[in-house]
């Protein structure tokens, strides 16, 4: 059945091109923006069962593509992304396009404004094809806990996995995308959009990037505006970038970065740092391998990839050395306290008065609040609100919140020590293993899974550092494995250069290379 439903075949050059390639083809008139947009929309329909999109903005996309087409015909380019389809995680506000956070609370919420990062893409002439699925309010690591249902990993339906998992007839063993930006990961790897915005608070962009086989960048905190990103944890959230190549990620980063007057935590990107280069020389590079990242539960295959890459770098002349990040072990519990506290605070605004779900309960204002919030939020969100409020109680504040903040500083200092001791970049796994099947994943609850899945990713959020996940190989199950690079603050360009070097050498396959067997 699924084989018939969605034949993952090589679908012509157009949709599997990189941004760089498609941008050039558009300019040269080899591709029409309208045609490109129609193909994407068609493919979105074909891949509907992935559940990557919550909202497909077909009408608007066609209108934008038409405008791009008439611009390009006149030789007027709005920017490097002119006419290129993109998708946005459904926790970025989009003007008059519903923005749900995959929650009943915001099921019908129409924001009156665009998030800064969305606006910047639109200003480039990029074409918005839809809003992507996620865990409710980005709380999760599987994209399995949203009100619109779980997202399916496109690799579930590609030949390498299907051959391993025993035949096309059985649809029950599909694997998850990771999360919480699973919709964005799936959208980019299933070739329905050329780039997608995710959000990354504890690994929410890098995790699905790794499991879906995409390049996923978590920029330095403060480099990209959060204005219009519905927050999870303000002090850790960053807009994430999902693309099919490191060069594409660099292009998008260039477009999105910079100070935004609407977000007081943004800074102008320092010009002193080297930008992205496709000819990066790793011979002067010092690569750190944090020993604490040899975590329990790390799969043999991921470990093997990690070693392979370290060897590859060393073989090319880079200095590879072990470093210690001693406080990493505390990062999960520290993250848990800080995350819940901010969640409790950030979610306080959802009372059903100004916007969002309002219960019919009207016996009193307080009763209405309680009912609206109970009906509007899922159990994961409610649980985090409850514990967050507990942590913030006057009697608990010092024991939990303050202590967690102190630990957070120690974790950040670990990184600083490593970088000031000469390490340029840290190489780590992104996830413990390749993607789990949905049926396996849901055997543990959201909190357990988040604790397991975010272990390698969220120290970078606690420290505000840039990190990128690069796909390196397919596992024996036929599923992507990604590795992560973490760099010093504002060295996002250098980080992508190293990632590019790796990308060029590992030769990770595009999903478009595989035809579904038995077809």
């Amino acid at each position, binding site marked *: 059945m699924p084989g018939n439903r969605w034949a993952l075949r090589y679908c012509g050059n157009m949709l599997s091109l990189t941004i760089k390639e498609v941008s050039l083809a558009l300019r040269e008139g080899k591709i029409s923006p309208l045609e490109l947009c129609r193909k994407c929309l068609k493919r979105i329909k074909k891949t509907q069962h992935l559940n990557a999109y919550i909202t497909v903005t077909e009408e608007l996309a066609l209108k934008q593509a038409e405008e791009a087409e008439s611009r390009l015909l006149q030789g007027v380019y709005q920017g490097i992304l002119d006419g290129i389809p993109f998708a946005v995680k459904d926790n970025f506000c989009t003007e008059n396009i519903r923005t749900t956070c995959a929650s009943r609370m915001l099921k019908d919420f129409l924001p009156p404004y665009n998030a800064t990062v969305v606006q910047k893409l639109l200003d480039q002439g990029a074409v918005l094809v839809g809003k992507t699925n996620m865990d409710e309010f980005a709380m999760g690591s599987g994209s399995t806990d949203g009100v619109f249902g779980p997202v399916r990993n496109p690799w579930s339906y590609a030949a390498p996995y299907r051959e391993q998992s025993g035949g096309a007839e059985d649809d029950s063993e599909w694997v998850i995308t990771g999360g919480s930006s699973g919709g964005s990961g799936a959208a980019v790897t299933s070739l329905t959009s050329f780039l997608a915005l995710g959000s990354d608070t504890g690994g929410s962009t890098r995790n699905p990037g790794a499991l879906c086989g995409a390049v996923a960048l978590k920029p330095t905190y403060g480099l990209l505006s959060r204005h219009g990103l519905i927050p999870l944890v*303000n002090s850790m959230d960053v807009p994430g970038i999902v693309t099919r190549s490191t060069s594409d990620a660099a292009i998008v980063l260039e477009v999105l970065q910079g100070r935004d007057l609407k977000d007081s*935590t943004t800074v102008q990107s320092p010009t002193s740092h080297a930008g992205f280069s496709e000819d990066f020389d790793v011979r002067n590079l010092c690569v750190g391998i944090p020993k604490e990242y040899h975590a329990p539960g790390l799969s043999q295959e991921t470990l093997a990839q990690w070693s392979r890459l370290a060897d590859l770098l060393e073989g090319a002349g880079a200095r590879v050395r072990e470093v210690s990040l001693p406080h990493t072990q505390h990062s999960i519990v520290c993250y848990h306290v800080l995350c819940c506290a901010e969640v*409790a605070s950030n979610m306080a605004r959802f009372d059903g008065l*100004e916007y969002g779900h309002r219960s019919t309960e009207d016996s009193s204002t307080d009763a209405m609040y309680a009912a609206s919030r109970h009906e509007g939020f899922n159990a994961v969100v409610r649980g985090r609100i409850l514990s967050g409020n507990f942590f913030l109680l006057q009697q608990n504040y010092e024991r939990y919140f303050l202590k967690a903040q102190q630990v957070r500083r120690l974790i950040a200092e670990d990184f600083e020590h490593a970088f000031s001791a000469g390490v340029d970049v840290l190489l780590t796994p992104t996830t413990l293993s390749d993607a789990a099947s949905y049926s396996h994943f849901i055997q543990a609850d959201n909190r357990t899974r988040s604790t397991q899945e975010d272990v390698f990713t969220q120290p970078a959020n606690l420290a505000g550092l840039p990190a990128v996940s690069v796909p390196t190989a397919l596992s024996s199950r036929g599923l992507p494995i990604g590795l992560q690079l973490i760099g010093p603050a504002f060295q996002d360009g250098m980080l992508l250069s190293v990632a590019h070097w790796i990308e060029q050498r590992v030769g990770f396959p595009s999903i478009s290379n595989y035809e579904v067997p038995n077809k």
Partner: protein
Amino acid sequence: MAACTVLVTPLLYVNKQSSLFYYKACNIHRQCVTKKISTSVSRCSSQADPQKKSRPHELVGVVGLEIHAQIQSNTKLFSGSKVGFSAPPNSLVSFFDASLPGTLPVLNRRCVEAAVMTALALNCTINKKSFFDRKHYFYADLPAGYQITQQRRAVAVDGQLAYSLLGGRKRNQIQSRTVRIKQIQLEQDSGKSLHDDQRSQTLIDLNRAGVGLMELVMEPDMSCGEQAAAAVRELQLVLQALGTCQGNMSEGQLRVDANVSVHRPGEELGVRTEVKNINSARFLSRAIDYEIQRQIEALGRGEAVLNETRTYDSKSGHTIPMRDKEGLQDYRFMPEPNLPPLVVYEDRGSVPAGLLGAEGVVVLEGLREGLPELPSVKRARLVRSYGLLPEHSFTLVNEDGLMEYFEAVVKETRKEPRKLIGWVTNELLGHLKHHNLSVSKCPVSPSALAELLELQEAGHISSTVAKQVLGEMWRDPGRRAPEVVREQDLGLVCDSSDLQRVCQRVLDSHPDLVRALQEGNKKVLNRLMGLVQKETKGRADPVLVRSLLEEKTS
């Protein structure tokens, strides 16, 4: 209702005579309710008057204030929406003010500068680095579910406000006092809820939501309502002089909550109550005095004072416990993660390169030099330059615009300022109060008053006539004094034969007075002069009349 009006009117009537509105009100209020709160009165005045000593075992009031001053600014504290008092509901609401998800606060530099200027004027220490925090509670007019305030470290601390009140029997002794300012913090105002009980609805207006507030905490250095009212009045004048708050209590630009307790001097402070919902300085004074007395009486009955919030009911003059929603609130404070620390730089040189001129960068240098003349300095200058009495300087400074009016009159007349002051603080202000007008609405311009006083100074009209002419000018704005004098023939009568006749007639018809005068009662002469002035409608030259009368009776 009628009884209420009757009760209130005399108060207002007496008040109109003086711009020392609050002090007088305080005084009168005491007389009105003396029976009820006699102890409070004696204690308060004994504190205010250093000559009397209070007995050490007697309970006295202790008053601290929490004042919320709306910052005078075009836009709100963290958003670009306009600030306005009477705009249509929900017409001044940005996405941030309505707490739309994804919106972020952006600090308004003007609001910080206003707080810093206020802090400088109140001799505070400015914290070079301060922080914003979230204070959480669910309320319909608090859309985000939290207020952004400064809990960990406020923008300014440790200041003081010097204020004075009039004491002594004639209320003409200036008593100077000081209240310490614990801190000044920046925070957001909330919206407004309107409860429609009939339809059991609550209507929300978010126009006020997010307007910048300065919360000033005054230490419990006051002991009665009169002192608190005087301190608030002085603060009002300081804020108005700075232009950092319009200070109108009835419009809610200045909101005062009083923390009231009683104790025996030298002992620990008693349990305090917080009195809210006070919308004028007069009510502030009354509410505090009532609350002090209530606590003294409660303790006298062996009852305990509860740590509670009470509201002032201006109709009954009582404080009433507020319905406590859920007992003690835990506000679950948390650092505001979307705002960097608020840094105030000493001078432009200390601002890091690249930040100079940037949004949100506040520099002390310049603000300090730009501070206007403060009320206490104004008063001292008035006393020094014009030889006025201190109480006159109070009247001039405390009444908005009166000092400027006075100085304008001084410029245009040769009359000595000391002789002129009564015309401004008694005659003119009396008219203004009687018609409930502000100085800016005064129908008689300073130059018109100066012209009138020139006529008197030159001896063309008597002071009685001058008052009469002022009344005419008040009734018919635009008419000038010489015109009125000419038309109504009010000039001094200097013709001695006319006056001879009038004087003789007065003497002839009052033989008893003449006898008394001749027997040595010199006071009777004034009486006779008055009668002559009555005959001439106040136009007789008093010097001439006096000599004629003396001549005729000797």
